[in-house]
């Protein structure tokens, strides 16, 4: 069956500068209510499991949660306990929506199974098109999205943090360097610093 292609763009309300947000809710299969808490506990106990995601270096923040009931505030709120558990997922990343999906399914294939296989209608991460459709179907658009440093990608932030340490050390050392030794030290520093600029 040929299904229509999904829009691979994020609406402007989901974007702040170079950072894009996705917010997703997927209904869980019966076993998701047991499996997802286990996944969360395992991931917290062994955060190295997410090393691949960390190395991708385009995801700044992400969180997952299993929503089974909502805080109750009295009438006219009518619902507290949900019929099904729902997996909530939010992520902030650099690049376009399509790039996020593409990189995620190709590099984080195993992780995608771990986090999404308990969701109903999960098609598997590959091929990418059905997975894109799965994401779009379950996405809720943001009404207002804020990022404190919208033009800085994860790579830029990490580079800036690494550079700052080196710069501060060099600045401290440069104070005590004689004038004729500064040039050589500056050149050496700059050669090292170039990869962070």
């Amino acid at each position, binding site marked *: 069956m040929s299904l229509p292609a999904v829009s691979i763009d994020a609406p402007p309300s989901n974007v702040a500068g170079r950072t894009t947000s996705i*917010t997703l*809710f997927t*209904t869980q299969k019966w076993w998701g209510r047991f499996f997802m808490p286990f996944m969360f506990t395992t991931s917290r106990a062994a955060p190295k499991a997410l090393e691949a995601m960390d190395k991708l270096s385009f995801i700044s923040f992400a969180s997952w949660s299993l929503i089974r009931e909502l*805080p109750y505030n009295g009438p006219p709120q009518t619902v507290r306990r949900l019929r099904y558990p729902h997996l909530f997922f939010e992520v902030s990343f650099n690049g376009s929506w399509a790039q996020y999906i593409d990189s995620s399914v190709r590099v984080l294939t195993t992780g995608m199974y771990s986090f999404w296989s308990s969701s109903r209608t999960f098609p598997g991460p590959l091929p990418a098109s059905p997975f894109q459709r799965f994401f779009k179907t379950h996405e809720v658009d943001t009404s207002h999205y*804020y990022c404190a440093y919208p033009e800085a990608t994860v790579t830029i932030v990490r580079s800036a943090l690494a550079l700052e340490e080196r710069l501060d050390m060099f600045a401290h050392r440069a104070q005590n360097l004689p004038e004729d030794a500064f040039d050589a030290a500056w050149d050496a520093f700059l050669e090292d610093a170039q990869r962070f600029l």
Partner: protein
Amino acid sequence: MSTRSPNIAGSTYSLMVWTPIIPGREAQLRSLLEGLAATGSPLAQVPRTHMARWLVVPAMPVPPGTDVHDPLGGPFLLFTSNFDGDVDSYLHELCELIPDAAAAIWSHCVGCPQPAAGAALKAYLHRNQVDSGFAFAAYGDASVQRIRTALDKRERLADFAVRAQDMDRATRRKAFLKEFGPA
């Protein structure tokens, strides 16, 4: 097994607050939230905020080809934020630093105190918090302030490296120390 809070990643906290929207107010609230960008986000005035979002959840998405409808009984406002430090002081800042925006937004929600301000609003937000299961942060040990400082230094260093090419030896050292030397 780790006892780490599910909401914490490094030094950052992942907050999620669900509040039911008063029947009939969804469009008004949505319009208010969508208009915030035009005048600059109020969240810029809450300096510990890395990333945050407000969204209206009208219903849980239904997987196509299934009949697993899960009515919420009405739309909910969802607020999430990744910020530095602890949740208690952050909620306090949220209510104190952007009182007008916070009141304008959450006064559309069921159970929100009137006036929507101060300790009462903070307690309301606390009461409506839902824990994360797992939170990830790419640079969770760096605060917003430290990131901004580092980004600024990186930009200034790139600029200085270009300018330094035309400086003589004595000027270069002096200019470097003036720009980056310890205060």
